[in-house]
């Protein structure tokens, strides 16, 4: 997928990605550049927060501000960034292990908080940076270096979880469809609230799913209504067909709006009281 030289110039850093040739993450990076370019966002006003894993290296390959945090901890860091400056565009990037195993707890709370940010879940169905162990999205029949006799735990469906946890925008795409992916990422960035983009991003080295997903991936039917939560969960959990597109969307107050409302309430309660006033009131 070719990206305009102008967009590449603006968002691509000098650092050469360390991903294996053919890795799905290249597609996500390209699609992200395109989405940022289409929205005309200034890289200095964008913060990309990542965890650990192949996806963790994502921010450094862009000219945006980046925060390469700890394994599983993208969500708390992204929350802090937004708490400090709600005007920034925040994109969090996490892998399947990052998001659903070590960071599973944070994922739940990020969804229910409805923070206005975009979460790119780069799902390659295993731990690739540590060279091929099973993750929560490892497929039932798949064997890995840590599950040589096959998996013995059930597959976790991130889109369905996100919907139930309270995310207000849930989409799925395939990294090989960069142009479509760019469109979905742009929609996610523009969505006011927590937006999850579940990206099927194959690992060519340890578990190549390109052919599998080429067969399984299907665009949502034209009459699909993304505001219908029950239908969204039904489509999200369909393992035989991997439906791509915007699975679910709704509008709820964002975390930032709720914080603002609290500030107004607090200011009403403590009209103009300064810290010095408060200290003085503690006089015996």
């Amino acid at each position, binding site marked *: 997928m070719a990206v305009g030289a102008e967009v590449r110039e603006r968002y691509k850093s000098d650092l050469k990605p360390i991903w294996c040739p053919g890795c799905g993450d290249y597609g996500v990076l390209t699609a992200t550049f395109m989405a940022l370019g289409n929205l005309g966002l200034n890289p200095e006003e964008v913060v990309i927060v990542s965890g650990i894993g192949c996806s963790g290296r994502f921010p450094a390959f862009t000219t945006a501000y*980046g*925060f390469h945090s700890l394994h599983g901890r993208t969500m708390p860091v992204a929350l802090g960034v937004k*708490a400090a400056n709600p005007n920034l565009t925040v994109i969090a990037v996490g892998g399947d292990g990052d998001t659903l195993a070590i960071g599973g707890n944070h994922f739940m709370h990020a969804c229910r908080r409805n923070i206005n940010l975009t979460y790119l879940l780069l799902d390659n169905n295993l731990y690739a940076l540590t060279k091929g162990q099973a993750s929560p999205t490892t497929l039932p029949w798949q064997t890995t270096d840590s599950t040589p006799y096959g998996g013995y735990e059930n597959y976790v469906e991130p889109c369905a979880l996100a919907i139930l946890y309270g995310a207000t925008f849930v989409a799925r795409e395939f990294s090989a469809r960069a142009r479509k992916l760019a469109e979905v990422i742009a929609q996610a960035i523009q969505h006011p609230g927590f937006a999850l983009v579940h990206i099927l991003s194959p690992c060519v080295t340890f578990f190549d799913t390109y052919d599998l997903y080429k067969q399984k991936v299907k665009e949502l039917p034209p009459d699909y209504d993304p505001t219908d939560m029950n239908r969204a969960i039904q489509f999200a959990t369909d393992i035989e067909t991997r439906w791509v597109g915007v699975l679910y969307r709704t509008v709820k107050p964002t975390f930032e709006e709720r914080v603002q409302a609290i500030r107004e309430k607090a200011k009403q309660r403590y009209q103009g009281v300064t810290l010095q006033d408060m200290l*003085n009131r503690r006089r015996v």
Partner: protein
Amino acid sequence: MPVNEFVVRVGGDTLEGGIIRTGEFLAHALARCGLEVFTFRTYPAEIKGGQAMIQVRTSERPIYSHGDEVDILICFDEEAWEIHRHEFNPYGVLIYDSKFEPKNVPGTATTYGLPFSEIAKVKLRNPLSKNMVILGAFSALFGLPKEVFEQLIRDYWGRRGEKVVSANITALNEGFEEARKLEKRDPYRVEVRPMRDRIILSGNEAICYGAIAAGCKVFAGYPITPASDILEWMMEHLPHFDGTPLQVEDEIAAIGAVLGASFAGAKAMTATSGPGFSLMTEFLGHAAMAEIPCVIADIQRAGPSTGMPTKSEQSDLYQAVFGGHGDVPRIVLAPSTVQGCFYVTVHAFNLAELCQLPVIILSDQSLAHRTETIEPIDLSKIIVIDREVYDPVVHGGDGYRRYLLTETGVSPMSVPGKPGSYTAEGLEHDEFGHPNWDQENHMTMTEKRFRKLELALRYDEYYPGFQGYRWYGPRQADVGVIAWGSTAGAVREAVELAEREGISVAVLHVSMLYPLNKEVVCRFINSMKQVLLPELNYTGQFAHLIRGETGLDVVSYTKVTGVPFKVREILEAIKELAHEAALAR
């Protein structure tokens, strides 16, 4: 000294209610009589029920510890007497609810049995008014003017309406009249002195005020005893100071959010206790590696594991100084007084910003929940330091180096939204923040990060008057005492008593535990014949740190009972060392 110089303790089952409030009212009333007060409390870990107590020490002079013996003991029930009689001054006063008869009271003590429960239940038909009945009796017995309590009742309940106020005043009067019938047989008295200009704060409140004064804009926390009241205060007040308080899903999220916020340009802190601090350890290392300023207040409780959540200990020092994988530079500060909690928090933020390092405040349960009368705080005298912000015009615009190698180790930090984008990197990196594992680079960058500790030791150049190391007493002495954290108060009083007994003794009060100013500590230890280091942990954690850093020995004196040192305990230890010093002469 029975006039204006005593310790009162109130004890009973929390099911009865009002125990802590009785003590708080008493403390406030004594402060309004122109006296200094210092309270200390313990409470049960149970949700309802269990014995609680509050102790109020008063004096005309500054107070540094909660007092060894209870001069006036007020017991709501028999169990309270059984618990507290071991710390009861045999020449003191026992006031008890006459629904029970206390056993084994020393013959030298004065006892007053009064039917508090009966008055409250039968006569006033309001069992919860018992605490006001007790305060009325206290007023009659010890001459604390009743009007002082009446005014307090008005100040406290005025907003709830005249009915509530008058019900409480009626209860106060009942207790007063009942106690007036008694014949006064003890020497304790309150004499009103001219009002002093004082404020009353708890240690945890002082941390909150200090944080706002230093410019804290984001707070993230998770409920944990004994730090939850900091979270609650921040949830209430940070929003009207244009900040954002976050109650998050766990302590990992708390420190993660703090680092995200600080990276985005806001001063941020979290507060926790041992178990939560353990969870934060990985991010602590990240803060050091990515060079993100942050403040962590650890309100220590007895550990390990869940330990004793409502009891006090100074046993997180190893964790604060050494916690984390890899070589992690950090700054560790410890307040010793309520006033110290305020200023140490200001210094913590300043040091975090100045050095772009994580700063840990080590408070503890006893300090967190005690109240003290302190001199009013004038915010106009506070110096607030902000991080050095990257400016392309000043620093040169071509290729921002977030981790620029400088003499101090501190590199100008850019703010998202403005020029100077980079990736805050937890991997080892070069000056640009690009991942790099060259042999030379790891050495160079580690040295850079640790160089900032030298800057921390020169903090007094940025904040004149800051004393991380305070030397009290002679330059040379038989016994030196190194004190840190809440133990410093008892040390100070013990040393005064030892001096009065003719012992040559000096104190080094350390509030910057790490980095350690080796020069000062070595000079102190070398100037003393013997050096005592009392601390509330089992392994002698600060003693270990000092031995390791200086190669000099100290006598470690430790205790883990969940309660602070008594002055007498430290005095005895000083005497013992003084004796040894004399023998060696």
